[in-house]
């Protein structure tokens, strides 16, 4: 339950924030700040953030869609290719 909660929280974090947070945790751990308990928590969070970042990186995939305006004023998109 708590684990699921933590993952959904992570899901909302932007890539940059996750990376910044990861860097912060690494700096703090390297500086030896905090007690052991909190450093273990920080480490676990760091690992989760790293996985989150890697997932985002792996998800990198090009997809080109062209916006079309419908008659009723709404907008839709269809995949397209612009090569050539």
């Amino acid at each position: 339950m708590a684990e699921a909660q933590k993952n959904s929280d992570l899901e909302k974090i932007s890539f940059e924030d996750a990376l910044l947070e990861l860097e912060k945790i690494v700096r703090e751990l390297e500086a030896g700040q905090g007690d052991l308990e909190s450093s273990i928590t920080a480490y676990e969070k760091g690992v989760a953030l790293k996985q989150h970042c890697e997932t985002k990186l792996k998800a990198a995939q090009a997809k080109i869609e062209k916006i079309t305006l419908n008659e009723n004023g709404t907008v839709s998109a269809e995949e397209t290719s612009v090569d050539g």
Partner: protein
Amino acid sequence: MEKSLFDHVAEEERKNTDSRANAPQEFSVSQLSGMLKRRVEEEFGYVRVRGELSRVTRARSGHLYTALKDEDAVLDSVCWKGTLSRLSVQPEEGLDVVCTGRLTTYPARSNYQLVIETMELAGEGALLKMLEERRKKLAAEGLFDENRKKPLPFLPEKIGIVTSPTGAVIRDILHRLAERFPRRVLLWPVMVQGQSAAAQVAAAIEGFNALPEDSPLRPDLLIVARGGGSLEDLMPFNEEIVVRAAASSKIPLISAVGHETDTTLIDYAADLRAPTPTAAAEKAVPVRSQIAAQIRDQENRLILAMQNRLQRHKQALDGLGRGLGQPARLVETAVQRLDQAALRLEMGLKNWLAQRGARLRESAARLTPAALRARIAHDGRQVKNLAERLETAARRKAENDARRLQNTAALLETLSFKKILARGFVLVTDGKSGKPVKEAAKISEGDFVGLQFHDGNVSAIIKAKE
């Protein structure tokens, strides 16, 4: 054909010769054409002429043939291939331009023409002035303020691109995006020049912004792009509606219009101005491999830092543990003390009992009848001794008392009757008992009596009784 220059020049020449001689000098056509050519080229070696471009023709050779015209005149013009590529303006039909170059003639056709060296838009000065005024006006409204600039997302999920669906611009952007970090791209196709371009570009920016926050089509970064072109070509991106749309975009916006040296008003309103469409793609996303390396580096440092941390704690713990001593040893000491205490307790009890036993035995041994008998004997002796001493003492006392009494009595007796005796009386005593004889009746003839005088005793026999 219009009236050629030749006629005019020939007339001039004729006038001149008329004033010098009656018979005009005779020239061959070539001579005259050559003279004319030299004259024209000397006179008009460098001219600056304004006109509208017409009959623009690119020859197979790559040279450009056109004509400059105004309301009343036309000037044939040519731009050689080498010069053409260096022109800052792409010659197009109807453009109002100012050209510099030299005049020359084309004797074969009895023609003269301008050889174009430079070309610029005639209206440019006025246009630039108008744009500068517009820029100031919009700046005064605060549309270009720095505090309106939104930071670009580090890694956008979806990128909205407003540009032409065909041509090099969109291809360049997509290629660069694919190289760096493939992303989902939403292309909003628009015309990028011409009458309706500005309205379409503005509508596209607003259209992307009008998408709901949770729409799968809403991008988190916009790129408005167009390739290079003349000032007129780029004019849609100077239009107020486009500038206002860019300024009020909630989605961070990168402008990439024209070449590096071109600046349009949308650049001032954009959150970031990219010099080229390719540069816009570079500003839009980081390089994926670099980010991946960065994350790997962070991961390594994370693990290393934690390992160091745990190692440090372990060492600290070990140190403390040593300081704390081994519990078993502590207990051992206590157990040893307890054992010793128990032993001493046991021994103590035994000793105590032994001591007491010994003392008891000793006492018991001394508690024999002999001892008592000795004591009794001793006591008995003492009693006997005391009794003897008591007897002796008592006898002696009695003897003393008796003697004292006797002496006293004797003394008393003596003293009492002796005095009388002195006065001539004699005490008669019974010869046997020695007792005084006080009555004559008690004496019989022949009895022995004692006669006591004051100076001695004599015995007597009674001779007669009277």
